[in-house]
């Protein structure tokens, strides 16, 4: 019997998704402005793992110091943003809810910009201050956006949430510009950060993303059944015995950690948390036992392929990764909007 309780993926599906992810990772390592043959890539990686780097100096440099940290950060960001989007959409019962549409990413950006402007950092690990402020501001923004939406519309409808998200993002954008004007000495660092890119990512960035993903994953995956209950309806969730306030708070904090750290590392990358859960839902259904792991795996694959497209489509010029995700995201966004409007009319 298929139930909401025991509906996780079979091991073979996990195996397939892991294979797909590894294939994409290897592809992204080999392909770029400089093409590196597969055998050379394996040779460099294997010898590096053994602690005895070999292969040409150029290949070593490109693979180990440029592409590997970037690919790791892209994959982890994709997984984190998709996982956060899937959880948020279940919690709010709204398929259009995610960091960038809700305005949470903008809030996180403001936190990060303030951290840079005020020089908030921990010696040795400078990005931690930016990430902590981004997470804090993401959470405060989410609280503000949801409170405002609730005052306007108790049902938290799609239109209200998106409208409040857009207005909030514009408001935050103005504040960021004011901060930039006030802290003109930090203009270079702030501008560099606001351009947002995963191009110069380091292993330290990847480690921070991995920790955030691991911690939030450990919190969110066991909440799959509770998120199913929320996705059916918050009132119904309470009636079947879900501790709604606790689950809401834990989920929101976890999502803000994911969005905040991603924004601190690579700036705002829109629509990832919207596109991937939508596709996963179409393939595997809305059950969060499948949706959450599916979104994490395919989110990594999606962002890796988007980054690959951004790097290679107009070689040697490089597009910002957000351009690719937004191109795909805008189409999916409109299709979801049409579907939900159609469903509401019927």
């Amino acid at each position, binding site marked *: 019997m298929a139930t909401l*309780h025991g509906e996780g993926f079979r091991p073979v599906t996990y195996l397939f998704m892991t294979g797909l992810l590894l294939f994409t990772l290897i592809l992204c390592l080999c392909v770029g402005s400089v093409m590196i043959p597969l055998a050379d890539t394996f040779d460099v990686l294997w010898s590096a793992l053994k602690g005895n780097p070999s292969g040409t100096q150029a290949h070593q440099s490109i693979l180990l110091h440029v592409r590997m940290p970037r690919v790791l950060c892209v994959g982890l960001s994709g997984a984190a943003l998709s996982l956060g989007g899937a959880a948020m959409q279940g919690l709010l019962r709204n398929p259009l809810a995610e960091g960038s549409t809700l305005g949470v990413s903008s809030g996180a950006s403001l936190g990060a910009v303030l951290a840079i402007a005020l020089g908030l950092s921990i010696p040795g690990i400078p990005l931690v201050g930016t990430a902590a402020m981004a997470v804090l501001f993401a959470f405060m923004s989410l609280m503000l956006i949801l409170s405002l939406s609730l005052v306007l519309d108790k049902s938290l409808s799609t239109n209200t949430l998106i409208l409040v998200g857009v207005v909030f993002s514009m408001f935050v954008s103005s504040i960021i510009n004011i901060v930039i004007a006030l802290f003109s000495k930090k203009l270079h660092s702030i501008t560099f950060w606001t351009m947002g890119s995963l191009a110069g990512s380091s292993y330290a960035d990847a480690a921070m993303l991995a920790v955030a993903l691991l911690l939030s994953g450990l919190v969110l995956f066991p909440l799959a059944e509770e998120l199913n209950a929320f996705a059916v309806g918050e009132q119904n969730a309470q*009636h079947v015995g879900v501790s709604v306030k606790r689950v809401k708070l834990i989920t929101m904090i976890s999502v803000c950690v994911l969005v905040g750290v991603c924004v601190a590392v690579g700036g705002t990358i829109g629509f990832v948390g919207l596109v991937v859960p939508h596709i996963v839902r179409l393939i595997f259904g*809305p059950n969060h036992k499948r949706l959450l792991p599916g979104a994490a795996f395919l989110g990594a694959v999606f962002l890796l392929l988007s980054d690959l497209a951004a790097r290679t489509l107009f070689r040697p010029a490089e597009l910002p990764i957000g351009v690719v995700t937004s191109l795909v995201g805008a189409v999916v966004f409109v299709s979801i909007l049409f579907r939900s409007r159609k469903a509401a009319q019927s």
Partner: protein
Amino acid sequence: MMLTAQSLSVRYGERTVLNNVSFDLDAGQWLMVVGPNGAGKSTLLGAIAQSVPYKGKVTVLGQDARHMRARKLARMLGVLAQNHRVGYGFSVEEVVALGRYAHRGHVFAARDPKGEEMVEHALKLTGMDALRKQSVLTLSGGELQRTFLAQVFAQNPDILLLDEPSNHLDLKYQREIYALIAQWLSQPGRAVLSVVHDLSLARKYGTHALLMEAGHAVHQGVCHQVLTRDNLQAVYDMDVVGWLKELLSVWAE
């Protein structure tokens, strides 16, 4: 006593929608909460279900509901809401199986040996067995109502709280659902509280009644002593019994 409400009051801003309502519900009783629109019936049900903030005290099987864990309360109280707005295309059986959530324990101790059997039974009982794989987004209002009723049956609580249980149902299913609830109630240690608009249904199936007007409980007790011509006339400001008889007379051959 299975359920006790003591001096329940609910305010929305400056407006008092429930004012000092008290009642008891014992095993085997079916309490019908009736009254005109805006009387506070659904608010009363929401307060008992702990989904509306209230003043006063609700005791379920001897324990203060306000301090009970959500899972424990759900094993005692099953709630069927009046309207259902489902966000995603879960299958009927997935929604019904959600009724077993409170019985499963936490993620590391998730066991519910009776769960599968209860879900199967609930699906068959409500006639939703044939539609079990169908997405809830494609169901009619009546089918959706039966799906959530099946969820409450799968939940297997001691007390049922039903807000207009025959909402969206045609007459055939209305009769079947009321018969099902009556059958469910015939098991020992169970009780039902339901909000109903149809006074004939209230009179036919209720053992007890609570007649409400403008947030107050104006009459309560055994059903036929509460739902009298005079009491109803005073609350509804019309000859309710006369009107029901007039409606029925159109079918006289």
